[in-house]
């Protein structure tokens, strides 16, 4: 079953160039989906359309059986958590605790219940020892984990990460990626990660490749990201595991698996 169904949507920021050009996609419930492509390819625009921050000029968006329109937009937003790129621009509270509380207050959660909820989600992102820390005392990776806790405390069915790791150093990146993987395996939440990181995309269930406002390829990352010529034509690299596979092929060693562990086993 599709949790998000997008049918032929188009969008333009300036009424001249189409940032999204007749895009359709269907995201199955509970999958970890990545959308890759360069800056300006339309990746982030899709996320903003899904939660109704931007209004499409054509087409239809259905989230959990609700058609996106003025009537349903609030209901849809309550189903979708969104984490943006810049860790500093989305930290609102004066402490970690306040920051997670912000969304709960907006939802008029009973203050008596709040501590328990904050504790639970701070634990889920492994930040419960930092509840009284100010944002200036946190690393970028830690701030992004707090942002994820804030989004999760709204108990969304879908979590969208819009380049959530692109401003982090490799360590912060792997902290956040590990957390997302763990959440996905534990909660059956649908995760949509808009990313530049081809290695992350390789780990996902389904990948969509975007270029110039269109989806040019999608499916199992093992197949999609193996299309070296296609990816090179839009200046994306192939995952390292496939580079190794091709390098082995070139010297006449054929392996079937597409993961490093599996290939090494075959050798």
């Amino acid at each position, binding site marked *: 079953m599709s949790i998000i169904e997008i049918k032929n949507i188009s969008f333009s920021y300036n009424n001249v160039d189409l940032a999204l050009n007749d895009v359709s996609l269907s995201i199955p419930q509970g999958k970890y989906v990545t959308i890759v492509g360069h800056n300006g390819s339309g990746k982030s625009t899709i996320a903003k359309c899904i939660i109704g921050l931007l209004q499409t000029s054509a087409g239809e968006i259905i989230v959990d059986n609700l058609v996106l329109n003025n009537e349903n937009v609030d209901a849809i937003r309550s189903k979708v958590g969104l984490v943006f790129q810049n860790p500093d621009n989305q930290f609102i509270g004066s402490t970690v605790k306040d920051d997670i509380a912000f969304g709960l207050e907006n939802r008029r959660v009973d203050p008596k219940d709040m501590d328990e909820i904050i504790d639970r989600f701070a634990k889920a992102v492994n930040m419960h020892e930092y509840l009284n820390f100010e944002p200036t005392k946190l690393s970028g990776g830690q701030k992004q984990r707090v942002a994820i806790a804030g989004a999760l405390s709204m108990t969304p069915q879908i979590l969208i990460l819009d380049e959530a790791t692109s*401003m982090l*150093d*490799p*360590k912060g990146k792997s902290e956040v990626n590990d957390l997302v993987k763990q959440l996905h395996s534990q909660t059956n939440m649908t995760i949509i990660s808009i990313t530049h990181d081809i290695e992350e995309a390789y780990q996902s269930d389904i990948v969509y490749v975007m270029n110039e406002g269109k989806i040019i390829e999608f499916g199992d990352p093992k197949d999609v990201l193996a299309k070296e010529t296609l990816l090179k034509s839009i200046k994306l690299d192939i995952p390292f595991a496939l580079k190794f596979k091709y390098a*082995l092929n070139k*010297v006449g060693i054929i392996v079937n698996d597409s993961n490093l562990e599996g290939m090494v*086993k075959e050798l």
Partner: protein
Amino acid sequence: MIIQVDKLSYEYSPNSVFAYHALREVTTSIQEGSFTAIIGATGSGKSTLVQHFNALVTPTGGSLTVDGKHIVANQKVKELKPLRKKVGLVFQFPEYQLFEETILKDVMFGPLNFGVSIDDARSIAQESLIRVGLDSSFYERSPLELSGGQKRRVAIAGILALSPKILVLDEPTAGLDPEGSASMMSLFQNLNASGTTIIMITHDLNHVLNYATDVVMLDQGHVVFEGHKETFFNETDLHEDYGLVKPPLLALRALLKEAKISFDAHTLDVNKLAQSIKEGKHV
């Protein structure tokens, strides 16, 4: 040896409650013409160290020599201008420092400051912009209307306009997309090939693996490694000891080792690695 650092210490806010030793008796050197990566965790002293290279900060203990200019502790450094011209320092997110009305003017600012005539400054600026891949259609545009990666190119052109012998870069690809990052790195590689010594702070071991020739690694103000890139990756496990994220090639090598498959443990190139597996040769 273009830079020699000798028992250099640096303390922020000495004699106060905020006193903090960022560097402790650091001794290291940078080879002329090298592409040296400076790595280490946040707070290890990387940025403080490189800021000594153009005397933006001066040591509180020890000394350093940069291309013949000796800088010792607690001594007012006179005649800094030649050093500032020799050593170009590009901060993190240099695009925040663009301020002129047009791109050409922004790049001309440095040469004009060093007393170059307007006509010469203009032609130097034009050359620098070409080197970073921005053509004449950009000259009269405002730096503010460019994309992040383009802005950063303008900022770097501003430094190149002083034709520095040594280019110091503090995480130059932070926040760029993969295409922007790769073309930025190949720009530095080209500058290095034409003789500029490149010193680059980075968190990304993939960049060290793919571009650097030498590595200096810091931890809590101490040098814990200095030497060739190959030595760093082949003969030490430092990247693991200090919790750096492993490039996939090193992860692969660890897997091969574990499975007792023989391969050339010295190559950092995936194709050569595959070839060595084929030959089953253990080097």
